[in-house]
């Protein structure tokens, strides 16, 4: 009997993995006098436990300045803190390391007051020097930070000036509408650990996965404990963290967060279903029905957070191409450039079927670049024209297209309308969208071929070689603020997908859009700014550089044990409030 009990205990330990994460996390430090803690409004929880998370891929780096991949950012975000943070649920800013901030009357400078008595996760005190140092690193061109663009306003990088130990002033060359949102996710770095490597020019090597845990420090709720390549990365409590709950307990509650590298979404789901991981962040709608069926039996809750900020779209190659090199595409481009052609295509696409078949009904059709998930900025007045093949045919006819006796669509030179849509073969939903579109457009007499390509090949064709007719892609997911998308919509933007190399606006409407976007950038009052952005959205929807298709819902899940679980439709959907999460103690069944 006893033997059986031991075996079952061992089995349970193996299943839950507790043997390997036997917690030795440091206890939270006593709160010191003069320490300016931020008080969380979340439910008061209890200390202890390991939150296990399955990650599809291994993080590539622990360097917050250069990280671009999702897994790295998910881990780094728990280890680092920013001055001002966007609450992922309310989508509004709230104080973080900055206890307060003030914008000057001309809108060109921010004065930020830093929290007193804050310490890094190695116990070293935090001061204005760290802030100035961090911005110096982020803005250094040699470091190649992807955040540098966002911190550059009106062509000039913002500058950070230390006023005193706990005050920093940020100067900008022009007023900036997104204001303090700019500080979100700009991690404050420990100058005492990184200054040397930065000055020696080896900053990129300073924070890799192989860096010893005791030489990495941050201001986030957790710090690095262990990294096992190919297996897992474990974070433990930062005992000096600057937040406390309503009863004055220092956060975070969790002893540890363990990220298991599981390989792909299917493995992520299986591990979650078996109870090996406690939360699942953003899974595809295809998997929802099968997971929902098991919800009761397996003791987890799935949450459908509604539409995400991701917008999927079809776009055509409108790049200026050398006609001798791209004869075929150059011959097709007059169609693609004709607004009536794009309108006809938009009218012929059955968006409801896309939502139903590509997202299993867990998504919404869209007609503009801002999804219903972005409550602050969506223009609700945009028209949602119903699908209509006859109207689409009328538009094509008015643009000079005709049909042969077999119903094939012919262009002005009486050549058949035939083109290909490329999309990433690793994204089943987008392949489905493209296939459905090809079928819809067959009803207009167009002959459309879908060519799924490996993701990098798609990127290469869109960004570099411009060798494609049309493409289905998706964007969005970061910040809700319009500025996050400036690089897509500004004619000189780096992600101006449909016409990559514009030096000046190629069409009058693009010039108008540039002007509107530049205007909203410096308009500080929300209502006025929203009006301008509404106009920009309408301009985009009317000119259809992208034919917007659908936005998937954000689907996440957690075991019933996880408390204070407040997932949000913004990245990182589930772990954004990791400092407040705690595990409900359950009667330990095997302890008898």
């Amino acid at each position, binding site marked *: 009997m006893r033997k059986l009990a031991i075996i079952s205990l061992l089995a349970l330990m193996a299943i839950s993995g507790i043997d390997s994460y036997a917690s030795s996390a440091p206890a939270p430090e006593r709160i010191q006098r003069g320490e300016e803690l931020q008080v969380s409004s979340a439910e008061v929880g209890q200390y202890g436990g390991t939150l296990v998370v399955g990650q599809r891929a291994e993080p590539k780096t622990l360097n917050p300045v250069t990280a671009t991949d999702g897994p790295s950012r998910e881990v780094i975000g728990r280890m680092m803190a920013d001055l001002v943070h966007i609450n992922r649920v309310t989508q509004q800013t709230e104080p973080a390391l900055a206890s307060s901030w003030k914008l000057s009357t001309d809108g060109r400078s921010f004065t930020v007051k830093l929290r007193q008595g804050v310490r890094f996760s190695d116990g070293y005190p935090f001061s204005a020097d760290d802030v100035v140092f961090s911005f110096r690193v982020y803005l250094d061109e040699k470091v190649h930070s992807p955040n540098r663009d966002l911190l550059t306003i009106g062509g000039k990088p913002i500058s950070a000036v230390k006023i005193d130990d706990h005050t920093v002033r940020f100067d900008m060359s022009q007023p900036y509408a997104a204001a303090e949102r700019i500080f979100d996710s700009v991690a404050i770095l420990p100058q005492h650990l990184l200054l040397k490597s930065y000055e020696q020019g080896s900053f990129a090597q300073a924070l890799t996965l192989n860096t010893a845990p005791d030489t990495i420090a941050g201001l986030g709720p957790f710090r690095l404990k262990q990294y096992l390549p190919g297996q897992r990365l474990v974070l433990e409590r930062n005992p000096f963290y600057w937040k406390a709950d309503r009863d004055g307990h220092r956060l975070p509650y969790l002893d540890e967060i363990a990220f298991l590298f599981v390989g792909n979404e299917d493995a992520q789901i299986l591990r979650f279903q078996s109870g090996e991981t406690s939360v699942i962040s953003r899974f595809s709608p295809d*998997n929802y029905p099968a997971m929902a069926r098991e919800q009761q039996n397996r003791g987890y809750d799935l949450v459908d957070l509604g539409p995400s900020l991701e917008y999927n779209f079809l776009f055509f190659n409108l790049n200026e191409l050398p006609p001798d090199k791209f004869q075929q595409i150059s011959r097709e481009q007059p169609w693609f450039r004709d607004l009536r052609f794009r309108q006809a295509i938009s009218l012929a696409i059955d968006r409801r079927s896309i939502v*139903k078949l590509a997202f299993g009904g867990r998504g919404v059709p869209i007609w503009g670049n801002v999804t219903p998930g972005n409550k602050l900025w969506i223009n609700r007045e945009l028209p949602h024209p119903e699908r209509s093949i006859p109207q689409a045919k009328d538009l094509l006819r008015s643009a000079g297209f005709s049909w042969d006796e077999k119903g094939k669509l012919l262009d002005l030179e009486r050549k058949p309308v035939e083109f290909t849509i490329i999309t990433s073969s690793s994204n089943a939903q987008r392949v489905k969208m493209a296939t459905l579109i090809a079928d819809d457009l067959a009803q207009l007499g167009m002959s459309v071929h879908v060519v799924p390509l490996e993701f990098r090949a798609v990127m290469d064709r869109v960004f570099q070689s411009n060798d494609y*007719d049309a493409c289905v892609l998706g964007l969005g997911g970061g910040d809700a603020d319009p500025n996050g998308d400036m690089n897509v919509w500004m004619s000189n933007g780096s992600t101006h997908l449909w016409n990559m190399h514009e030096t000046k606006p190629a069409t009058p409407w693009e010039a108008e859009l540039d002007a509107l976007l530049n205007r909203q950038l410096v308009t500080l009052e929300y209502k006025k700014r929203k009006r301008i952005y509404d106009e920009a959205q309408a301009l985009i929807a009317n000119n259809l550089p992208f034919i917007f298709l659908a936005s998937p819902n954000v689907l996440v899940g957690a075991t019933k044990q996880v408390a204070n679980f407040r997932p949000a439709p913004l990245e990182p959907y589930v772990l954004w409030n990791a400092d407040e999460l705690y595990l409900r103690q359950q009667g330990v069944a095997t302890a008898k």
Partner: protein
Amino acid sequence: MLMHRKIFAIAMAFAAVHCGILFAGFFAPYMPSAQHREHAYARPTKLHFVDAQGQVHIRPFVYPSVPVEGEGFQYREDPSSGYPIRFLSRKSDGIHLLAVDSQADLFLFGTDGYGRDIFSRLLFGGRISLLAAMVATLLSLLIGVAAGGIAGHFGGAVDAVIMRSSELVLALPWIYLLLAIRGSLPLHVEPTRTLILLSAVIGAMGWARPARLIRGVVLSARERPFVSAARGFGASEWYLLRRHVLPQTLGVITAQAVTLIPQFVAAEATLSFLGLGIGEPVPSWGNMLSAFQQFQTVSSYWWMAAPLVALVAVSLTYFVLADALHQAGARINSGQSYA
């Protein structure tokens, strides 16, 4: 006699499968790319013989299926009216062996994520997949037998060169080569050209393994006493290779052929992933199977495994047929030599 009956039975099965695939347009109830968007992921349609009143019908019939509200991809039968299966019915796209009126659907193997009939896609897809796989198998075996036979029989420098190049082929990072091939091709490639391309690429990739196997068999065969005896009588090396050594490899070749065909059908799915295979909406067993790699498909839509079952069944038919022919051939051969 027993042997002949066995061969006959297998040959019939073989003919039936290939007939179905060859005349897919007649046997398939629908066009392979026709989408029934209201019936995505529908289970195989049930054929009924007994109606709601308990009356027995000789001609099978089906009930129309209607989506269950609020549940994703769940359907129920509406037993208020049954629709009989019509045999040899004429539709706009020709005569079909089986059909039902348009108010109901006949999805014998269910539908995929677009509501396309899997049975029809299986038949149409078999054309491309089996043809490409067979041509590729033939190609890789031809190269493999030639290379392995020569290397094994002549040995020495020839052997070293051939075997090292086969190792090179095995070690090559094919994926980059394939990406380069894809990059040099136009985006849309006609299905016939895709077929040739597929067979060539897979065949060129696949010869190294059979070559190594055959080399091994040849190495042992050429040392057999009767080969030495023939050499002693003054037979030329080419004669020995053709008459005595290569026939010994027949068993290995058949076994290889039968294992390579399903492998190559699956390889086509990998090539589709790189944009080199058969693209949507044209069906192939490879691209149909790639949907089955996803967890949700395996857990919720088991009927999408149909191409897998078909592949195993077809490979098995090939195997048994090849084996029976081989045995029959051996008997005839031995009969002749003792006569």
